[in-house]
């Protein structure tokens, strides 16, 4: 063993400015999540595989549906594409809380909290960055497959709309999941909530069928479901020439335009972040 004296405390007086410290700690925390992913890619793969199966099997299930049944006379596969893309991003983001929950349970979070973090928001920020990248990657994989199956590809402005819509949804759902990860006692409970929320939210939206197919009570449900507000703009982007002031959703309580859908998502995201902030502050100080 070496016997040279250990170096004098270097960190005591280093103060390198808030921004540089913030980015260093956020980058390090994000890097950790991606290292985990690279060595255990099964969640990423499963997150792509499941919607792919949906797309293929569900698309095939209604392949021979009478023409002209769906609004705009599109095939069921084309109709389903938007729903599956949104569902992919949604279920990916719903898992955002899991790594945080495991860190809470195994005490790794305590290791982070004894460090002089510039802001403990960097723990949350790292999760948001990570989940956003993952969800978008998964969604893009689905979009590519849909294109290969002949269900089309949104061009130019359409692609931008798809990405913006997905981002908004991912932020909102990530906020929700992170909130749950700090509010619930353990990962069993969190997985239970994820499991219960996942499929019903898919069915009670316009992912698999248009509002016109549903009974009145279900129409209400689907018109209040946040997934619907993400699905309709994306479906519009796939449909062709983009006009956000066009009515995309004829909800029982009134018509919603493309701008309306996006506004709902923005409000939802902002609301959820405001809602979980006090909880995060309490748990992280």
């Amino acid at each position, binding site marked *: 063993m070496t016997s040279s004296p*250990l170096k004098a405390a270097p960190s005591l007086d280093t103060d390198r400015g808030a921004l540089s410290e913030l980015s260093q700690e956020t980058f390090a925390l994000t890097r950790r999540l991606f290292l985990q992913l690279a060595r255990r890619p099964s969640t990423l793969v499963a997150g792509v595989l499941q919607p792919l199966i949906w797309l293929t099997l569900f698309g095939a299930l209604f392949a021979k549906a009478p023409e002209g049944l769906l609004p705009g006379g599109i095939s069921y596969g084309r109709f389903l594409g938007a729903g599956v893309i949104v569902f992919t991003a949604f279920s990916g983001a719903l898992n955002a809380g899991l790594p945080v929950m495991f860190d809470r349970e195994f*005490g790794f979070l305590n290791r982070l909290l004894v460090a002089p973090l510039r802001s403990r928001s960097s723990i949350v920020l790292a999760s948001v960055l990570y989940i956003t990248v993952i969800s978008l990657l998964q969604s893009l994989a689905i979009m590519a497959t849909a294109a290969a199956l002949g269900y089309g590809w949104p061009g130019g402005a359409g692609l931008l709309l798809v990405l913006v819509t997905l981002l908004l949804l991912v932020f909102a759902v990530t906020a929700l999941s992170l909130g749950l990860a700090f509010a619930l006692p353990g990962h069993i409970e969190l997985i239970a909530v994820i499991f219960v929320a996942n499929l019903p939210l898919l069915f009670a939206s316009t992912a698999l069928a248009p509002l016109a197919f549903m009974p009145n009570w279900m129409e209400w449900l689907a018109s209040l479901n946040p997934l619907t507000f993400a699905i309709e703009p994306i479906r519009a982007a796939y449909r062709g020439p983009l006009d956000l002031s066009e009515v995309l959703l004829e909800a029982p309580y009134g018509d919603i335009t493309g701008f309306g859908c996006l506004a709902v998502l923005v409000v939802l995201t902002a609301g959820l972040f405001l809602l979980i902030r006090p909880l995060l502050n309490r748990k992280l100080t």
Partner: protein
Amino acid sequence: MALIELRQLNKAYGDVSALAGLDLDVPEACFYGLLGPNGAGKTTALRILATLLAPDSGQVQIDGVDALKDPRSVRRRLGYVAQEVAIDKILTGRELLQLQGDLFHLPRRLRDEQIDDLIDRLAMNEWVDRRCGTYSGGMRRRLDLAAGLLHRPKLLVLDEPTVGLDIESRAAIWELLRELVRDGTGILLSSHYLEEVEALADRMAIIDAGRVIAEGTPEGLKQRLGGDRVTLRIREFSDAAEAERVSALLQPLEGVQQVVVNRAQGFSLNLVIDGDPVVETMRRCLDAEGLPVFALAQSRPSLDDVYLQATGRTLMDAELAVAGQRDVKQERRQSMR
């Protein structure tokens, strides 16, 4: 100025009191031992020092900084090695250290130099680039110590650092700790192992039921007790009546300060005597009564005797008493955010 100043710390979990008016002063560059049975409040005190837990009342000053008002400054000065080692099984040891260095905002080059230096000192070269999930308990502890030292803290806080360690790891850790204190780092170490505290600490406090019951250097504490300890067995297994008879026989002898019948150990006798000649007096007395001596052990007072004197029970009895009461689930919840 003291490196650590704790004043009248109180902390309760529900109606269970963990700290009851704890006072502690740890001087700079001192190896300080906190000795007490499980459940005495050691971990709670250290978690408060590490700014993970707020006390119900009391004051915490570390290196002149009020830990309750300015926890971030305290975190920069302090390295904390917890009892339950939380590591990320998927990362390698080196990656974990890099993460830790970044969380302490070390510049990249300095970070990597410190990591290499600590890998050397703790002999981690062979396995530091393997995933943490494959490590033994000793490897984890060494990695955790390295993580706590990366930012070269002025104060290192260790919660039971060598519990269940292999000899090689323990030796590596002890040597590094001694070196740190020589170079000016203050160390606060909690332990329920007498030997560990005795071997390492310059000063120590014995803590029981959430407060300090004795404080000083290990030597000073033992000398203050005075007298020699004798454990006497008439037969391998005596009965109560015989033990009481012998006790009554020895008690009046000159130089015998105290005789206690130890029921827990087959009715052996624990005595406190003035010095060597008294042993001869005792032997002659037993001989005259025709009593055999199966075993007789004489020793200087130990830290366990210090604890016994202060609390009326041995450290081991105290451990056994709380072993049944501990609610591991409850403790885990308390440490969970």
